[in-house]
């Protein structure tokens, strides 16, 4: 059994201009102790997946269909009150800490304590001890528990966010762009910290990012999102070595490799499509250098190519 098993998830936003299919028939799994990376451009629907799992989709958005199985139980079928047993205790979330993810009027320790006492009814003295231990775990001196968020640097705030996510000992942590807005050195430290915690605590991680290098650091499996759908789902090493989907290829071509030969970066031509009115057939075909006739008429299905899944007519055998 998978720890998290997302099946045919569809999350749509009913806006005045029409229905935005932010997540359109997406399935993937996260296993115990596994780190899965969800990558894609802005607006490709990757964060919407995370919010759907946490049941944070607000109107006009709605999870239209599909299942989100956690340890075999469908989270979407649960009532909100039942969902409280899962929320933060089983699945927690690391927000972008550099921004306003901590409440400016409470001390950092206080916010962690609140999260603990709210769910577990432990005494505040106990909770303070836990909070200080957690801060120590993420590399913040426990005396800083009494500092306010504005007294922390961006990296420390991100560490505090991680401590908060770990407050209730979850099995799965969803990290939504945990290193965005941090400088590269701090980014490195935070990624090391997450990798370290994953190993120490046996966490499963669902990492959401637009940065493939972050995924290559941390994850064993990558899910490449394009326009609300999965373009490619593959072990990270294989994907980096030999990307299958033209979009993945494009993404990797748009990256500098520190050890590679000197070459020009090749950006992907065009812009991400509007999800209000996505292109017919394969959603990538208007930007795809390999597009052929069938690509604009028929949507490619995810096809197994040597244990990897890819949605592209180059591999479906159609001509």
């Amino acid at each position: 059994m998978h720890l998290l098993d997302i099946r045919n998830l569809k999350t749509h936003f009913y806006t005045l201009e029409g229905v935005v299919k932010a997540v359109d028939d997406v399935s993937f799994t996260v296993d115990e102790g596994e780190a899965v990376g969800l990558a894609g451009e802005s607006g490709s629907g990757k964060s919407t997946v995370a919010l759907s799992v946490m049941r944070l989709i607000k109107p006009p958005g709605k999870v239209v269909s599909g299942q989100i199985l956690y340890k075999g139980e469908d989270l979407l079928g649960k009532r909100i009150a039942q969902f409280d047993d899962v929320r933060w205790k089983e699945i927690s979330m690391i927000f972008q800490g550099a921004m306003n993810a901590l409440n400016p009027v409470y001390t950092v320790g206080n916010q962690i304590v609140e999260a603990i006492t709210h769910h577990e009814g432990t005494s505040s003295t106990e909770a303070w001890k836990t909070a200080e231990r957690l801060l120590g775990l993420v590399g913040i001196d426990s005396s800083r528990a009494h500092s306010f968020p504005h007294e922390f640097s961006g990296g420390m705030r991100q560490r505090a966010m991680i401590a908060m996510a770990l407050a209730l000992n979850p099995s799965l942590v969803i990290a939504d762009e945990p290193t965005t807005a941090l400088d590269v050195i701090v980014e490195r430290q935070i990624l090391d910290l997450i990798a370290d915690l994953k190993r120490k605590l046996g966490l499963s991680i669902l990492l959401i990012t637009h940065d493939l290098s972050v995924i290559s650091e941390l994850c064993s499996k990558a899910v490449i999102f394009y326009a609300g759908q999965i373009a490619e789902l593959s072990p990270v090493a294989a994907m980096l070595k030999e990307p299958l989907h033209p979009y993945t290829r494009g993404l990797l071509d748009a990256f500098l490799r520190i050890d590679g030969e000197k070459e020009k970066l090749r950006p992907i031509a065009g812009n991400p499509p509007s999800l209000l009115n996505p292109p017919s057939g394969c959603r990538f075909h208007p930007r795809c250098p390999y597009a052929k006739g069938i690509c604009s008429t028929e949507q490619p299905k995810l096809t197994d190519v040597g244990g990897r899944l890819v949605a592209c007519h180059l591999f479906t055998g159609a001509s």
Partner: protein
Amino acid sequence: MSKANVTRRQRVRSTLQNASAFLKTFRRSKMGVLGLAIIVFFIALALLAGPLAPYPPKLMGAGQPFEVPSAEHWLGTDDVGEDLYSQLLYGTRVSLMVGFVAAFMSTIIGTMVGLISGYFGGKLDEFFMRVIDVLIIIPGIPLMLLLAAYLGPSIWNIIFILVFFGWTTIGRVVRSQTLALRELPFIESARASGAGDMRIMFTDLMPNLVGIIVPQAILSIVGAILGEAGLSFLGLGDPTNQSWGLMLYYAESYGAFLRSAWWWIIPPGLCITLVGIGFTFVGYALNDIFNPRLRRRGA
């Protein structure tokens, strides 16, 4: 010494540090200190009205009618020989009490409406905002007069009227700030960790609003005191609880202006002005501290 005690002591210490930092900043504002001094002075007058007043405020014939200020009657007497200094002292009580109570209630109602409106949005928000629009658009004074005349002279009716019209400003300010705050990631994060609507509104949003609520509340005390004075001056005050405004009404009705009995007119007028200035100064000073982006150098 156990670890827990250390922690608690640390927390107490950091609270004290914050308080003293606040005082230091406040002391730097001359305007604020002056305002506070004025307010403290008048509150002391109000509290000590009993022992300070040489005569009962409504004792006719405490002196001759229209006596000029003297050692006997510091502020002279009115048309029936009542001691005006004593009246002024007791009037302080009424004026301040009305101001505080009305501003307090306006603040509570305004904050609730603003929070609910801004947080939930939608039809509820639409409804409250239209109510506020109506209350702001219709000319206040005539309607206040109407209400006051209809409800009859009582201090509680005056407070009701002042609150009825007074909560709108705070309501709007709190709503707009809530609209901005509720989109911030820490609210999303609170929701993700399982906080309900009530918890988000009162433990997560509310403390972030204190900085705009407190100065606004202090400024609304001025509005309430002036409002009360206005209503009372127009003869709609409560005769059993004579405020400064009502003193002016009597002065006007019983010929103080004709007889140029300045000692009956100037002191209550001056008191109203001074108290108004005091609260305004403190309000502005607090605003400078709580909203430092607006803070000016040397203010």
